[in-house]
């Protein structure tokens, strides 16, 4: 791995974790904690994305250990982002937002078993309350847990994909040129083999 990519990973992990401050400022029910993972995958490929996701979970676990079991979700997000980058889904918001919505479904399907069996769906206040709402609507415990995860992940991943697309398009040409995969992700040029 090149030194540039080695320097990129800690920055991307910090992006994953520091965006919570901006989310708090605007008061939206979002996490944006996979932004750095998706961005590095689009910039530098799946290995860097997976390392970013795993390191995010490890570092976040030092603040809140309940994040560690969700490391698998970060890896799935990185793999999906690689697919999205390869297909040029970051070309525009029209392609990025539906791709993000699909990731929201995938993430909620994969996070539900972890949330249900490890945490009893009590991972965050928002998820616990929407799970309770699902129970009140007559869903089974597992169904209510999926309902809670789905409501939190669906919008979050769509906004994350839209944000990453905006960032990729706003990258200065000199910076983008150092990450040839970024150009392919936004459909400007094919990456060299």
């Amino acid at each position: 791995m090149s030194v540039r990519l080695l320097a990129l990973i800690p920055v991307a992990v910090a992006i994953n974790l520091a965006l919570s401050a901006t989310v708090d400022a605007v008061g939206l029910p979002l996490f944006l904690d996979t932004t750095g993972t998706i961005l590095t995958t689009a910039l530098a490929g799946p290995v860097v994305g997976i390392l970013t996701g795993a390191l995010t979970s490890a570092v976040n676990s030092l603040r809140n250990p309940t994040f560690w079991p969700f490391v698998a979700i970060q890896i799935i997000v990185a793999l999906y982002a690689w697919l999205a980058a390869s297909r040029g889904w970051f070309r525009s918001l029209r392609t990025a937002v539906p791709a993000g919505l699909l990731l929201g479904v995938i993430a909620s399907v994969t996070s539900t078993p972890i949330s249900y069996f490890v945490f009893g769906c009590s991972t965050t206040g928002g998820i616990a309350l929407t799970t309770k709402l699902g129970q009140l609507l007559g869903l089974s415990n597992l169904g209510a847990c999926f309902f809670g995860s789905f409501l939190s992940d669906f919008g979050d991943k769509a906004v994350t994909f839209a944000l990453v697309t905006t960032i990729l398009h706003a990258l200065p040409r000199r910076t983008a040129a150092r990450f040839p995969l970024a150009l392919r992700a936004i459909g400007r040029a094919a990456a060299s083999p």
Partner: protein
Amino acid sequence: MRRLHPFTLLALAVALPALAWILPAPWGAAGTLTLAAALLLTPGASPGITTAKTAALSAAPFWFFLYLLHGVGGMVPTGLRLSTMIASFVWLVAILPPARLVEAMVAAGWPVSVAFLFSATLQAVPALHERAQRLVDAQRCRGLATRGGPLVRLRALRALALPLVLSALHEVDERALALETRGLVAGARRTPLAPPADHRAEQALRWLLALSCAALFVWRIA
């Protein structure tokens, strides 16, 4: 306790939650939580009562939400397991400085790039978090509305997140140059300044913990 090798502290913090989930609830998890609480409260083994309070405050919301969703019967086993996990990790973070863990990783022959990733991330996170807060303040001073309808908030989010991420990416080149200057290339080895002592008894303890978890897991699923 503080003098134990970082890998031993890590093994203890990982083994206790693993056992909490492997052993039958609620007594198994109650036992592991007792051990984790003992680590938190033992004089000289933990930074003090503040750490125990941090663990208790972190675990409290889970108990509340578990009660809300599953009642008392469902709350107790999961609550005990989650509390073990939280207490173990809060204890680990309080007792093990990251720099000491990095020294142990380098001394154990891990690639210096892995040690760098870990330590650089721990430094980068608070720095970027602080910058994010400064950006929020600066944009608000310029009249950015962060409250209102969803579209207003999303526009504000873009105005806050974009400069933060772009400025962070801009630093990557500077960091890469600094790393190259310091000779951080593939296969590079470093000599740790103060490698933690790793006694045979501690190595045996780590193996014992790993084998116990594996054996109990097999016993539970058999």
